[in-house]
């Protein structure tokens, strides 16, 4: 037999319990889990992705990107712009001369990171970006995008280690393939030479 | 404290003047909603006159009943009947000059009566204070019969109003 007002009483008890427990319960079991943003920071999650950046191995000169343009085509918001560098003879030098990403347009989807065959573009953890002017202020040129491999290892240790092993293995395989047959003329190694 | 006395008396005359102005507003304003608001203001003024005449309980009842209920009723009626079209409609009919003359005559007659007759004002009456307890006893004592008749009448009015105002929708089968 439903006593009149019993549901009302139960409802009030729920909110009262919630009110009281919010004072002493710890965040993960029912307490208040709000993070006071500027003072406290959320603990870093490795796969948190924000604007892309380019990786270089030792010196900014040895950039991994070969300006193949796959990410430029794949980017849904078309915010990447690449121009191939031409060496003295006018042949493409497999290096990007100009590599612009418009952070204003980029929606942090991470497509460029997935499609990049040369592990050269990854998503960063830096999200507090401001610029004085909206249209042109947020366009990042190549030198602003370049970051060292150590930084990449620091922010995404697991992924970075996997990629480094892969690159080292490719390195050994290439060196092994190149070393044992010093005799055959260098012409056969032409097509794989660019796979670095 | 003669100054306070004199200031209070002046205040009462001022309130009376304000009430008369609001009353004129009730009668002459074109927009009926403004009339109802002037009526509310006039009634609150009259409640303050009751306080001056040491009938506080009645002032409270007056505000509660008149301003709280009757004026709200009038405003409900205005809202339901006044279509918002701002068509300027002649508010008063043609007999207004005739009515004014008749009223002036009526006022002159009653005015002279008021001023001329020596009212039996007794200082004892001025001093007597009506307590709420006294009112209750009188209502329950000497005036208990009209009190009951009024309650029956109010119930009759309640039922009557609902029946008249109810939209007579055809009885759903």
């Amino acid at each position, binding site marked *: 037999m439903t006593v*009149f007002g019993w549901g*009302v009483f139960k*409802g*009030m008890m*729920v*909110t*009262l319990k*919630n*009110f009281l427990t*919010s*004072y002493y319960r710890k965040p993960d079991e*029912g*307490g*208040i*889990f*709000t993070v*006071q943003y500027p003072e406290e920071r959320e603990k870093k999650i490795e796969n948190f992705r924000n604007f892309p950046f380019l990786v270089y191995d030792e010196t900014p000169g040895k950039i991994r990107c070969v300006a193949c343009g796959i990410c430029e085509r794949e980017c849904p918001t078309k915010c990447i712009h690449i121009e191939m560098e031409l060496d003295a003879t006018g042949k493409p030098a497999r290096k990007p001369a100009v590599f612009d990403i418009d952070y204003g347009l980029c929606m942090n989807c991470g497509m460029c990171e997935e499609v990049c065959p040369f592990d050269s573009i990854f998503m960063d953890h830096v999200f507090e970006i401001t610029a004085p002017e909206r249209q042109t202020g947020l366009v990042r040129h190549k030198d602003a995008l370049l970051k060292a491999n150590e930084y990449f290892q620091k922010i995404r240790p697991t992924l970075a280690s996997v990629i480094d092993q892969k690159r080292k293995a490719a390195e050994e395989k290439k060196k092994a393939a190149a070393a044992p047959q010093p005799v055959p003329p260098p012409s056969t190694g032409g097509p794989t030479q660019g796979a670095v | *404290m003669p*100054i*306070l006395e004199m200031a209070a008396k002046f205040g009462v005359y001022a309130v009376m003047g304000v009430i008369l102005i609001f009353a004129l507003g009730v009668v002459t304003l074109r*927009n009926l*909603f*403004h009339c109802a*608001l002037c009526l*509310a203001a006039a009634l*609150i003024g009259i409640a303050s006159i009751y306080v001056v005449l040491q009938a*506080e*309980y009645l*002032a*409270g*009842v007056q*505000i*509660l009943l008149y*301003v*709280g*209920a009757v*004026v*709200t009723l009038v*405003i*409900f009626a205005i*809202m339901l009947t006044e279509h*918002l079209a701002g068509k300027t409609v002649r508010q008063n009919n043609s007999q207004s000059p005739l009515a004014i003359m008749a009223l002036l005559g009526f006022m002159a007659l009653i005015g002279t009566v008021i001023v001329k007759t020596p009212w039996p004002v007794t200082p004892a009456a001025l001093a007597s204070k009506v*307590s*709420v307890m006294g009112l209750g006893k009188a209502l329950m004592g000497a005036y208990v019969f009209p009190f009951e008749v009024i309650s029956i009448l109010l119930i009759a009015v309640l039922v009557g109003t609902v029946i008249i105002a109810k939209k007579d929708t055809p009885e759903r089968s």
Partner: protein
Amino acid sequence: MIPPMLRGIEFNVDMIFVTAKAWILSLLAQFLPAWLLVLASIVISGVVILCLGPVIMMYLTLLERKLLGRIQNRYGPNRVGKWGLLQPIADGIKMFTKEDIVPANADKIVHLLAPIVIVVPALMVFLVVPFGERMTAVNLNIGLLFFIAVSSITILPIFMGSWASRNKYSLLGGMRTAAQMISYEIPMTLAVVPAIMMSQSLSTNTIVLSQVGDYDLHWYIFTPWGIVGFIVFFLCATAECNRPPFDLPEAESELVAGFHTEYSGMKFALFYMAEYMNAFTLCAIAATLFLGGWQGPFLPSWLWFFGKTFLLICVMIWFRGTFPRFRVDHLMGFAWKFLLPLTLLNILLTALWQFTSNLAAWFWSILILGISLWTLVKLNRTFVPEKRHYPMGN
């Protein structure tokens, strides 16, 4: 030499405000004529109330947002000031600086008058509230009637506000608010009658004094009719100041903001202030009538008064954190078909309570209350339409 005003007041924490006022008056007495002193004491009380009202309103808004936050597992505002204490001031500045938009074909005068006319009764009610021993601003012997009459005036400015802004939503909101406030005013007035009957007077001070007793068991809430009266009065109080779960008229989801849709800036702040001050005074009167006003064992009287009122306001906020909104017909049905008969029966109970002995009185009054509640619930069984069957199958 104690100045004449101060004689007869014992100096302890309880009388701190009374002595403060008397001391100020004794200071003024040196260079003011006698009759001006009377005005001075009126002015002092007036200034105190005029400051008390808005400050209470500001910190009620903060309290509400803090408690609601805690109920919903988040902090309330804590950015402006130490624990968000300066938040009301920030809100106030925001309200002042906001642009004051008046709709094009609105009725200018009435649009301007409405917020003013709604704040005046909200402030006037403070006169009658007994803040502590000998701390009622004006000791009217028709205190309670004054309170009910003044709080019944608030229906008018709501009409003015909704009619003047020439907007369908505000007109609908205004009509609903007026209907709700009228239908909840009657049970509220009748819920007050038992307290008046038992204390033989309308003045709030004597009502509090009539609840004096050892161990404070003489509060009216510790009697069967007191409990019922308190619950009904408190429900009607929440409905009277349009607070959830009775806040249909200004329900954001349905009527944008009810009657104060077309108001912004300072005028909206006045509407907002009037609502919160009404909430405070209604809780104060509920505490005075049923919880023994400033009665309390050790603490000074005004501390007891503010504690009880604070407790009741927290319950109102608690309601807001818990309950969904009433539907219009349930809202009206609840007032007319449930609360009104209950209060009438409550008055009968108090009458019988006065003449019978204590123990037996408890027994049969609970009996009567139980039976009447049961019948009322049965009578109010909500009309359940017969199950609708769809031709195409469900």
